[in-house]
Structure formats: C-alpha cells, structure tokens
C-alpha cells in the first residue's frame, strides 16, 4: 500500500515545471481596481461607499449581506470612480466598485499591527475572520467564517489544510508552502484554537517533496499538527477526495464536510486567516500563478485583489505566442476568458495561457462505451448513463443515476477517447435539477 489517496482520478500533464521554481513576486497595480461585490458563494456584498469617496487600503468597501456572504476589502488607496456592473471571470456581469488607484497605498489605521491570538476568544477570532472578508481561496469561495462556525464545534475532529494543489500548472500554493510555511502553521493553530477536539493535518501531493519536507520539519514540535503526503492524482485536492484520502471518511453531495467531522481549508486561505488574526490584515491579496506555453515568463505573483488580468500578463513579459485560450484558474476546473480586462478576484488562483486549445483540436465522436469515465470517476458514478439522461434533458433519470453526486472535476471529459463534453452537460443538468429542487421547496 502506498500513499494516502482516493479511488478513481486521472493523471493529466502537470505543467508545473514552468513556474514551480519562480519565487513569488509582489505585483503593484497601475490601473484602476475593480472590486466585484460577489467573489464568493452566497449573497453579494452591499457597497459601503459612493462615487467620489476617498478609500484607503484595508478599508471595508462591501458589507456582507447575510450570514453566507463575505465582506469586500479595498486593496489600494484612491477614489471611487464608479459603481457599476463589470464582467468577471465566469462571464457574469457583477455589480462592482471601481477605484482609481492613487499609487500611495495609504492604509487604514492599525493595518498590519501584531496581535496575539492567545488573547482572543473564539468568538473574537470568528468575527475577525468574517470582518476580513476571507473566503475559500482554492476556487469555490465559500465564506470561511461560515465554515468555522459548524453546528457542533466539538464534533470537528480534523482541520484539513489542502496543499494537494492537484490542478495542473498551478504552483501558487506550492510557493507559499516553501516561502511562508510559518504562516500556514500559524493560521492552522489559530483555527485549531476554535476546535478543542480537532487535530490539524496538512495534505500535500508527493510531487512536491520540498514542501512536504519543509512543513514536516516545521510541525515536528506541534503536538496537534501533522503532514500527510498524498499520491499525486487529480482531483486529490477536491474536498471529498481529500477527506477520504486522509481520514478514510466519505462525504456525499447532501453532506457538509462538518458532518464527517472535518473542515477543509486551502493553503492560501489558512495564510489569510493568519494574516487577519495575527497581523490585523484583511484579505486584500492572493497568490496567482501566471503560466502556460503562451506566456513569455511564467511567474507566481502576489497580486492585490481587483488588479486587471492584463497587468499580470504585462508583468510576465506578455505573450510569446498568440494564445488561443486563456483560463482563469487551471486547465481542469478553470474558466475560459474571452477578454483580459477582468479583475483578479479572491478565487482566481492562476491565469493559464495556451497557444493551442486542445478542446477545439478534437472532434466529438460517438460513445464507444469504453468505460474509462466509470473507472476514473471519483464519485463512483456512471458518466455514460448520466450523459444519456442529460442528452434527453431527463432530470428524473439524471438524479436516478446519482447525477447530483458529480463534483464537476472533469476527469471523465479528460479521459474520454470519444472527446465527449460530459462534464459540460452535467453542469447544465445539475443546475437545472438544483433549480427545480428550489422551486419545489
């Protein structure tokens, strides 16, 4: 028996060598900053400023509207230029605050002050995390304060830090594990302070031996934290796959990780918690990998949220070849962009630029029932049957073959020799079924 893992999954080309040895560089934005009010799962935030207002770095400019929602923090100082709908990475128009950056980065009072987490109560920590606008930075964008407030806090036995970074090409989490591992351990300790019965496990895929070594060394005197090396396989970093690999527990679509005694947070999210609680710094930045064969100098950047993607491309030396496809995120789960004038939001882990679009290079052919999709599906369902239901638009049949258990990881589509758009069809069906359920409820 080898390393901890889950059953199913695929091994796409990793592409991490492009940027894995590039230390994180701080990118200072030049142009206007765009802050969408919805960068998370849940209700959009409400703007707290108006056109013409002066704003400071670290100032809350969007207020969470409800429990499952998140604040939006300004990452520069300047003047509010407009509040209007702007295009975001998923293609939607989202109400956004546009700030003219004065280049001074004047901060709100007290920003960056040291704070001892031991002096804080559990409620104070949760309030700080909420105030800081922290959401899951791995991609889903679920508000972190909600995750940290489960029904029964004593039922939480594991705080899992997701350092799998199974998505091809991405190296932002890897760089942070190498460069700022103390902050990861610090952030994890803050979270563990909330859950007396829990232990912390940092899961890292074994294609990152340096990161495993570094963190293992760092936690050797931490009684409540351990590092768990994981087999390199996509989607190892999917929440359900990670929980299964580390704890052996299984979470299905109708459960939350908390139902299995687990809370899962991404590496960068844990760092954000550390920064908010111990350094009085709300979520204003994230680490973005700018990569792909079309980029002149693939890089990892420390980017202020709200920065235009075009600025990232410029900083990375522009395109060395004409790109055919730009992806916000990685190639397995990222979103294709049709324009670079889109702001970096809390959940944008990468900008991947491909000279050739593999999807367009292949033509869809009939299913030959080879069963590869069945063997790779981490949800152990049968994509062939789901596709049959999806093509007919038959929601009932789709649910009957457990279509709602799909986590949209894309493994089936990746492996399909007939190049059928399985995941794409499932996303549509899942949306329809979910909408129908809401209607009934």
């Amino acid at each position: 028996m080898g390393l901890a893992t889950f059953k199913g999954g695929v091994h796409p080309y990793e592409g991490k060598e492009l940027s894995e040895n590039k230390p994180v560089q701080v990118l200072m934005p030049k142009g206007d900053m765009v802050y969408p009010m919805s960068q998370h799962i849940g209700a959009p935030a409400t703007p707290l400023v108006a056109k013409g207002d002066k704003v400071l770095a670290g100032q809350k400019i969007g207020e969470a509207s409800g429990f499952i929602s998140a604040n939006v923090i300004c990452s520069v100082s300047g003047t509010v230029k407009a509040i209007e709908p702007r295009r975001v990475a998923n293609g939607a128009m989202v109400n956004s605050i546009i700030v003219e950056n004065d280049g001074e980065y004047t901060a709100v009072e007290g920003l960056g002050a040291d704070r001892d987490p031991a002096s804080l109560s559990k409620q104070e920590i949760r309030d700080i995390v909420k105030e800081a606008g922290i959401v899951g930075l791995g991609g889903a964008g679920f508000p972190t304060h909600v995750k940290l407030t489960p029904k029964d806090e004593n039922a939480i036995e594991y705080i899992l830090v997701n350092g799998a970074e199974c998505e091809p090409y991405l190296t932002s989490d890897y760089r942070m594990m190498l460069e700022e591992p103390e902050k990861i351990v610090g952030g994890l300790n803050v979270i563990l302070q909330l859950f007396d019965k829990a232990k912390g496990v940092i899961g890292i895929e074994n294609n990152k031996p340096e990161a495993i070594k570094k963190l293992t060394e760092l936690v050797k005197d931490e009684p409540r934290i351990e590092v768990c090396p994981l087999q390199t396989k996509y989607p190892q970093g999917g929440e359900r796959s990670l929980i299964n690999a580390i704890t052996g527990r299984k979470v299905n679509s109708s459960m939350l990780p908390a139902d299995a005694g687990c809370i899962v947070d991404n590496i960068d999210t844990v760092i954000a918690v550390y920064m908010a609680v111990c350094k009085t710094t709300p979520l204003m930045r994230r680490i973005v990998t700018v990569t792909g064969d079309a980029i002149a100098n693939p890089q990892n950047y420390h980017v202020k949220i709200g920065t235009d993607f075009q600025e990232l491309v410029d900083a990375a030396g522009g395109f060395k070849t004409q790109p055919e496809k730009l992806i916000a995120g990685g190639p397995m789960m990222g979103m294709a962009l049709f324009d670079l004038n889109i702001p970096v939001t809390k959940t944008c882990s990468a900008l991947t630029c491909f000279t050739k679009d593999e999807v367009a290079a292949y033509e869809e052919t009939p299913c030959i029932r080879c069963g590869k999709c069945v063997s790779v599906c981490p949800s152990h369902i049968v994509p062939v049957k789901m596709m049959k239901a999806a093509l007919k638009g038959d929601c009932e049949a789709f649910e009957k073959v457990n279509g709602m258990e799909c986590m949209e990881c894309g493994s089936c589509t990746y492996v399909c020799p007939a190049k059928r758009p399985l995941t794409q069809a499932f996303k549509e069906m899942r949306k329809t079924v979910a909408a129908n359920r809401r209607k009934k409820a």
Partner: protein
Amino acid sequence: MNKLLNVSSSPHVRSTDTTQSIMLDVAIAMLPAAAFGVFQFGMHALLVLIVTVAACVLSEFVFEKIAKRKNTIADMSAVVTGLILALNMPADIPLWIPVLGSIFAIIVVKQLYGGLGQNFMNPALAARCFLLISFTGKMSSFTLDGWSGATPLAVLKTGGSVDVAAMFIGKIPGTIGEVSVIALLIGAAYLVFKKIISLRIPVTYILTVAVFAFIFGQQDMNFVLAHICGGGLIFGAFFMATDYVTSPITPKGQIVFGILLGVLTGLFRLFGGSAEGVSYAIIISNLMVPLIERVTLPKAFGKEGK
C-alpha cells in the same frame, strides 16, 4: 489582441487517447494470432484476412455514402470488426462467404442500428453466427497440413483424447485466429498493458468455463485445460467478450457478464449439439447487457450504506 479567443467550459485539456488509437491497439493486439494463422494455414489465410477487412471497411464507406452519414472509416472500428470476423473463418473458406459476412456485420448489425456504439451485438460475431447457420458445412470444415480433421473439442465430445500442449501452441485444426493460445495471450497482454481492456470479463469467463467443465464434464486436468485452450475461448474471452459496445460498463456487471458467458459456453459445449459455443454465448450475453447494467449500477461515493 487581434484574434478571438476560444471559450469553452472546463476541463480545457484532453487525454491523447482517441477512439482511433484504441481501435488501432486492438487491431495490433490481434496481429500475433493473425500471423500465426497465416504461418500455419498458408497464403489463403492471408487472403481471407485482407479481403474481409477490406470488405468491412468498404461496406461502411458505401453505406455511409448512401445514407449521407459522416464517413467514419478513419476510426478503425470497421478494421477491427473485419479482423475479428476473418480470424473466425476457416482458412480455406471461399472468399465470397467472409465478404457476405462483412456486409452483414457492418450494414445490418452495426449501421442499421445507428453505427458505432449503438449496435447491441458484436457485429463480427453476429455475422459469424449468421454464416455458421447459413453455410454450416463450409464454416465448420477445418484442414491442417492438407488433412481435414475434427477440432479438439469435437474429438473430446466423441470421447477421444487431445494433446493440450499442441493446443497451447496452435498445432490444431480450427479457425485462422483461434488456434494458438500463446499468440492470443501475447496480444491480450498488450491490451491489458495498454489498459485497453480490464481482466474482469476474460478472467471470470475462463474460470467459469473451467469450473463448469470440471463439475459437469470430467474431473480431469487435461479435459479442463482442453476446454480452456480450445474452441476459441481465449480468443473470445479477450477479444470478443471485451468489446466495449456490447459488454457491461459497470465493474460488477462485467463480472456477472463473465460468469454468464462461462455458464452458457459450458452448457452449449457439454449439453448442446455442437462442440463449441463461444460465439453463441457471447451474442446471447450481449442481449443481457442492459439488464446486467441496470442491476449492477455502482453505489455512489459516500452513499454506499443507502
């Protein structure tokens, strides 16, 4: 930005496997058996191979032209059908018989039901059974080194004894591709190595036949081994029962399918009129596939208890 970008839903990468590459691998895997057949039975066997494959590809081409469907001969599936059908022919068969079989396989069994992926029976096997029923004499007269002889399983049926070692190598009368167990196993190993097929169907199939032969036949190792090596079981188990389109897609279903194949083959061989039964067992089991899949749908991750 002077060129429009491609926008599509994730994932944005694809594996390099295609239908064509898989079919090509299956065809390559049958080459050792085909080569052995030509080596043993002579140039007419080679002619049968070439003519059958050509007839299958041509049938597909012509039908798709007439039906105004997209030309799909590049996906290599017709080549595979042709090879399987040819390897199921006696070496000295008159060429018009495999040509007729090719037309039946491609047009009636495959294309009339909707083309690749839609046929409910293995086209090559359905064609073989059609030919067996229509031209029983020509389809079941086998010669080796100029002598016409009975196949080992026919010898066993009449109470004779057979040389299992000769069967393993292939020095026996039979169809072009079924005789040499060793050549077939080389091809099968290639398919397993390339992850084109899993061992679930072939292993359960062969084991079930062995157990069946042991219980209902003779409690004799030679008898059981003869049943494993003879009658095209190895060819059928690895190359025909594993046909993607006509075998269950669920892992448990593949095991059920293998057992069903084994039981049917055993019944046909030991209690039926003919000495062999692999082809009939497979096409009958093909019909059971939708039912098998329905009852063997896997439990979704995290829902095993429900």
